């Protein structure tokens, strides 16, 4: 049998929190806009899922510029979660996304437990009446204004409270996006699993800083920003592996994925699906090339179901 016909036999579909994705490759939140921005270059129908830019109940203006700066093999961003708000998203962006044969995962956040709950409620109601939202991804790398601005995702207690509250609010599959800015990511994943999450995604960006030495000022107006891109990949792979050993719920792995080989590292380390973020900026067709590349690699290896490579790491 030729490689091509073997490629056709490879089963790429995966089940994440009860959602059947046609393949395990998605876009990561904040790097693919609301889908339309890349639709000129990328056939959105081919994607396993699209994860949209993080949304909040009320629109957010975001940080002043400069918001981005390059770093070795990566970039820092301090966008400040600028977004059009959930209502405008449902009215103006979701109808466009509904045309495509892919799954839509809506990333959302808040600055208090009440706001997280309200966001989840509004998204669930919109989904119940008109469809088009297949899962929620909750960004917990945000500070809690009601508790000394402590970041939800770095404090097990705050995390448990907010995830439990949102879990009670929504029947949509709930993915929790973990922050890498913690000492023990496995512990965080366990807390999230115990609080009722259906899946976890990781990693969000790692806080960093770049200095303009002539001006003696930080390069970003926000002083610090989140590092992403190939520079973070080894850290992300390590964290996926730690989380894989800590929990049973499925893992969506991300952080510096540019190529098929990069995606495979995450799958072997324990991820069931992967997301491409900064890679889209460098190569808008990265997702498509990775989907094709996975089929080819698995056929060559004689593995006919992508699920069989998840967690296949031997130590």
């Amino acid at each position, binding site marked *: 049998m030729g490689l091509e016909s073997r490629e056709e036999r490879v089963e790429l579909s995966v089940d994440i929190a009860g959602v059947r994705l046609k393949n395990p490759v998605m876009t990561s939140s904040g790097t693919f806009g609301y889908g339309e921005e*890349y639709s000129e270059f990328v056939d959105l129908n081919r994607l396993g899922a699209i994860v949209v*830019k993080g949304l909040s109940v009320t629109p957010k203006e975001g940080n002043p*510029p400069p918001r*981005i700066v390059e770093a070795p*093999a990566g970039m820092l961003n301090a966008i400040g979660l*600028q977004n059009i708000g959930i209502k405008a998203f449902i009215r103006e962006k979701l109808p466009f996304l509904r045309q495509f044969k892919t799954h839509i995962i809506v990333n959302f956040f808040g600055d208090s437990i009440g706001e997280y709950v309200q966001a989840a409620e509004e998204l669930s109601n919109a989904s119940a009446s008109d469809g088009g939202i297949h899962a929620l991804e909750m960004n917990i790398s945000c500070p809690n204004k009601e508790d000394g601005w402590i970041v939800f995702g770095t404090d097990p207690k705050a995390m448990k409270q907010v995830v439990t509250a949102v879990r009670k609010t929504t029947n949509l599959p709930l993915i929790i996006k973990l922050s890498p800015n913690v000492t023990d990511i496995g512990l965080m994943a366990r807390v999230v699993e115990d609080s009722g999450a259906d899946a976890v995604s990781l990693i969000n960006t790692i806080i960093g800083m770049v200095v303009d030495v002539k001006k003696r000022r930080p390069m970003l107006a926000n002083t610090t920003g989140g590092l992403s891109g190939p520079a973070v990949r080894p850290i992300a792979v390590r964290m996926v592996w730690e989380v894989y050993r800590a929990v049973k719920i499925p893992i969506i792995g991300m952080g510096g994925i*540019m190529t098929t080989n990069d995606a495979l590292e995450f799958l072997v380390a324990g991820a069931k699906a992967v997301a491409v973020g900064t890679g889209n*900026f460098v190569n*808008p067709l990265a997702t498509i090339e990775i989907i094709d590349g996975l089929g080819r690699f698995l056929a060559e290896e004689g593995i006919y179901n992508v699920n069989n490579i998840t967690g296949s790491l031997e130590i």
Partner: protein
Amino acid sequence: MSEYFKAAIIDNISLNEDLKLLTITPLVPTISPGAGQFYMLQVGNTYDPLLKRPFSIFRSRGFDYGHRRLEFLYKIRGKGTLCLSNLKKGDDIYVIGPIGNGYPVPKEDFVVIAGGMGIASLYPILERLKKRAYLFYGARNKDELIILDEVMALSKEIIIATDDGSVGQKGVIIDVLKSSPLIKHNSLPVYACGPALMLKGLSMLVKDAKITCYVSLDEYMACGVGACLGCVVKVRSQKTEVYKRICKEGPVFDLEDIVWD
């Protein structure tokens, strides 16, 4: 409409110490750019530098007979442009473009204000409506007044200023503009591109005048397609102030709408 495509480098020649002219040819049929639009160019083959860099279209040729050429004028500033300067004839690069709204094409006489490299972005409108522009061209010194002969030939009148006085008047171009009747008593549309300081100066200058100024802005960019929200500028829109994406809603804005910090 913009496209993602592969292009071959035809030439990458030095015009002076840190200024180069890059000519590429798309390897697939592509649409032609409009004046003031730009492209995101891959500058190397490694992950450092990682991101593409934005460059205004300087000249485009042969789009009507299939012999397409895209030309860019660029200055070597940092890692990205240094890397780009090392690319050689025959190398392939990936490109996104043409991007952005571009300048509205003038229909009558118009004023052009160029600061340094800003001339690259403004060249296409000079070329579109030859001998109709009053060009104010400022640069640090004689060497940085690039393609001077070409733009002189395309303009109706040209006024030059250099910081060191090596050509034209000594000082910044905005000071020269201050005493020009073209700004004080006229209503010709103004097209400007250059350092933020120059554009800010222009906005002070025309504050009370009834002049439409189209300015092209500059900011760090990651995606170039409107997806990352990295390249914003604050503008007035329906009585409120919002951040707009320079790569999508720009790079050309009405000067009056810009909120300077």
